């Protein structure tokens, strides 16, 4: 080094060594950039792969395979008239008609020995509903399309068990099968037969849980954010509140489930697996998210607004509730929606408080036993029956659509109402 200073010979930038070195450094630069690109591409590809897998499997879940069944109602029901199954006594009349028996008879007459186990368990209910919707059906010969058993459903859509495959090919030759939209999936509840399941019960449970969560977490979160940003003096208590909130925001969700189990269920004796307890548990989890988002929104309101209001004689409470809160509201709402979206997808705490029971009907009240959409997905994913695979993916599609919608709403709100001061 000292030698170079004494005899300064200029670096030969165009020499071979230097050119090689530069080429090497540029190659390293390109490699590094390519690695960065690869990282982003891999993450995106994974997401795309996940979504495509769910879509590919899930779309089939919205379809069902139906079989044509001929009903000779006058013969089967020994001449029941349309009038007798309408009006106030319709229920009793339908009950005495023995719809399941009629369905069994009709299908065994038409398909003979393969008729055993062709139809799904809920098929008789479908026929009953058709008769209620159109009582005139009962007076004549009808061809009705009824959902088939899940084994055949799987075999018709893709490869299934050999026995079911054979039945399906026999039926397909007779042109007795078709694919229809699975309304039951959107309106029904959990069932043991995958071709009869629906997500409405779980979805309603999720909505009720979310309603409780929103009603509790939003006011508490906003008030706490206002207190911490606007009024709290720097002291031990405030420090403790801040540490608590930051910590709660990072506590694993399963811990909230344990809290719900120990406090709400065991200590307070609240009804197990109800939307009320689920909502309370998720509210405790969502509240810190709202507080943190709310504090940032309140912080971004410029002090000049507060000073102006104080200057014309508003009290500190009036300053906050008349001026700061309305200006901070879009930001608070954005944070709330994001927190609610997280709560909607949350499964583990709900499992802890027992929302994993088999619930074959939609809940009627906040204290009824219910399940939630993500929990339903978990429960179906555990089923051995092949027919549940597509139902699980279909339920995931519904859940993702809702989450995406909520996040899009949050982004829209942010862009629409965000004020740059």
């Amino acid at each position, binding site marked *: 080094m000292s030698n170079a200073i004494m005899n300064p010979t200029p670096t030969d930038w165009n020499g071979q060594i230097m050119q090689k070195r530069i080429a090497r450094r540029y190659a390293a630069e390109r490699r590094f*950039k390519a690695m*960065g690109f690869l990282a*982003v591409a891999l993450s995106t590809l994974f997401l795309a792969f996940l979504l495509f897998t769910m879509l590919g499997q899930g779309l089939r879940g919205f379809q069902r395979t139906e079989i044509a069944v001929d009903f000779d109602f006058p013969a089967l029901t020994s001449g029941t008239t349309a009038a007798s199954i309408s009006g106030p006594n319709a229920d009793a009349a339908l009950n005495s008609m023995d719809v399941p028996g009629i369905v069994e008879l009709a299908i065994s007459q038409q398909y003979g020995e393969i008729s055993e186990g062709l139809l799904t368990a809920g098929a008789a209910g479908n026929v009953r509903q058709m008769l209620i919707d159109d009582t005139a059906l009962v007076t004549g010969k009808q061809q009705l399309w009824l959902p088939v058993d899940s084994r055949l459903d799987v075999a018709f859509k893709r490869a299934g068990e050999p026995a079911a495959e054979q039945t399906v090919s026999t039926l397909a030759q007779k042109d007795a099968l078709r694919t229809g939209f699975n309304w039951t999936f959107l309106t029904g509840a959990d069932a043991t037969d995958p071709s009869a399941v629906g997500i409405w019960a779980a979805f309603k449970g999720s909505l009720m849980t979310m309603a409780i969560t929103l009603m509790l977490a939003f006011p508490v979160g906003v008030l706490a954010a*206002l207190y911490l940003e606007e*009024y709290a003096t720097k002291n031990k208590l405030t420090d403790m509140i801040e540490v608590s909130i930051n910590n709660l925001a*990072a506590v*694993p969700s*399963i811990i909230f489930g344990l*809290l719900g189990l*120990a406090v709400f269920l065991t200590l307070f004796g609240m009804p197990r697996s109800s939307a009320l307890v689920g909502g309370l548990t998720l509210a405790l989890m969502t509240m810190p998210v709202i507080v943190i988002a709310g504090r940032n929104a309140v912080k971004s309101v410029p002090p000049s607004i507060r000073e102006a209001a104080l200057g014309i004689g508003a009290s500190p409470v009036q300053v906050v509730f008349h001026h700061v809160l309305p200006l901070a509201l879009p930001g608070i709402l954005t944070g709330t929606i994001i927190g609610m979206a997280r709560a909607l997808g949350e499964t583990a705490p709900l499992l802890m408080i027992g929302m994993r029971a088999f619930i074959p009907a939609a809940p009627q009240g906040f204290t009824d036993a219910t399940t939630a959409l993500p929990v339903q997905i978990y429960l179906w994913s555990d089923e051995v029956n092949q027919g549940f695979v597509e139902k699980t993916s279909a339920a995931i599609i519904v859940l993702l659509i809702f989450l995406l919608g909520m996040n899009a709403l949050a982004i829209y709100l942010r862009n629409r109402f965000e004020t740059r001061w």
Partner: protein
Amino acid sequence: MTGTALLFLVLGLGLIGWIAGRARAATFVRSAKNGPRGTVNSLPYYHGWFVAICAIAPALVFMFIWQSISPSLVTNMVLSAPAAADLPQEGFARAAILSEARAIAQGFQTAAFQDESEKLVPLYASALSYYKWIGVAATLLLLFAGGAYAFTRIKPDFRARSKVERVVMFGLLVASLIAILTTLGIFASLIFESWRFFSMVSPFEFLFGTEWNPKSVVTPGAENGYGAIPLFWGTIFIGAVIAMIVAIPLGLMSAIFLTQYASATVRKWMKPILEILAGVPTVVYGYFAALTVAPAVRDFAVLLGVSNAASDNALAAGIVMGVMIIPLVSSMSDDSIAAVPNAMRDGSLAMGATKSETIKQVLLPAALPGVVGGVLLAVSRAIGETMIVVMAAGYTANLTANPFATITTVTVQIVALLTGDQDFGSPHTLAAFALGLALFVTTFFLNYVALRVVKKYREAYE
């Protein structure tokens, strides 16, 4: 009258109080002679709020207290009746009969399984209605007394605003205290139930035992299969090793590419797409891991010649968990790289260093504390994650470093222990709380350290 109906009645009467108070105060304003408002201290609606608060608040507090003490009053009344004298004295059977009788009397249950509870049903029904009507009467009495008191206080010079604002401030403080209350609730319930657990199973076995095979009946002083070391190892192996091997390079390199190389348009589109990864519910990841990734990993292992690869292997769960964590690592790295002063970067570039040399030798070392903080937060997220491991990793405890084997974690075992139809006091249930406590303490510690590191580092450049 049910609790909900009473609640709505109370709120409705409060609204009437609000209207009445406001109307009365408005007459002062209208009849004021000197000036537009005269000497009226507060706006009319503050008077309204004053009346409403005075009416509702005591009634609601009473309702809440009554809700918690009336069950024991009802039970006492039933037990003091002569028909209850021949109940079994033994605690558990007695409680079962009582709770069944109560459930039937309240209409939750229709038929009794025990004959004794059948006899108690009418007793319970009468006691319930007796105390219910006392509660309703006292609530309404308090409501009217409070409302009337407030109504008589309304005068032109009454400082309704400052009174109402004091209540508002109190409400704000209470809302903030709920966070502390929740933290305390978590702490208290975890510690209390863990203490009950450790009075059955020795803490030494729990913390240092290597065999996890929990028995539902424990014998004190013997090995009961509650050695949690395999669970701790599994949690660390999946959450802190495999997931981080995926998440750190991908997250860090994504952050570097998006902040340093990508054009504004690419950044604008790619950042939200990465964020979607964080927004996908964990149950979806779990399903994906179990259905698609795990079989692929097993096939890959077979290809490599690993014969005993399990279908619920640790690698699949770890990889998917790592992908879930990418956005967290990425955004934390992003923040800390952005916080490095531009002068450092410009200086390095001016010396002739290429972009990648600047990043590797100037930006990253300067941003390291922030990145490390982000990684700690990511680890705490990963070890507390439940659904992915519940669905994709297994239930068998295994003390192995083979990523193709089945490995279980703390969260999986919490779920497994709590999902049987167990009595709340059983060692299985309590063990779940002990595991929860271990998890809570670990994540608390990690978060605390991470936030300290990040904060300290931010201050260094401010």
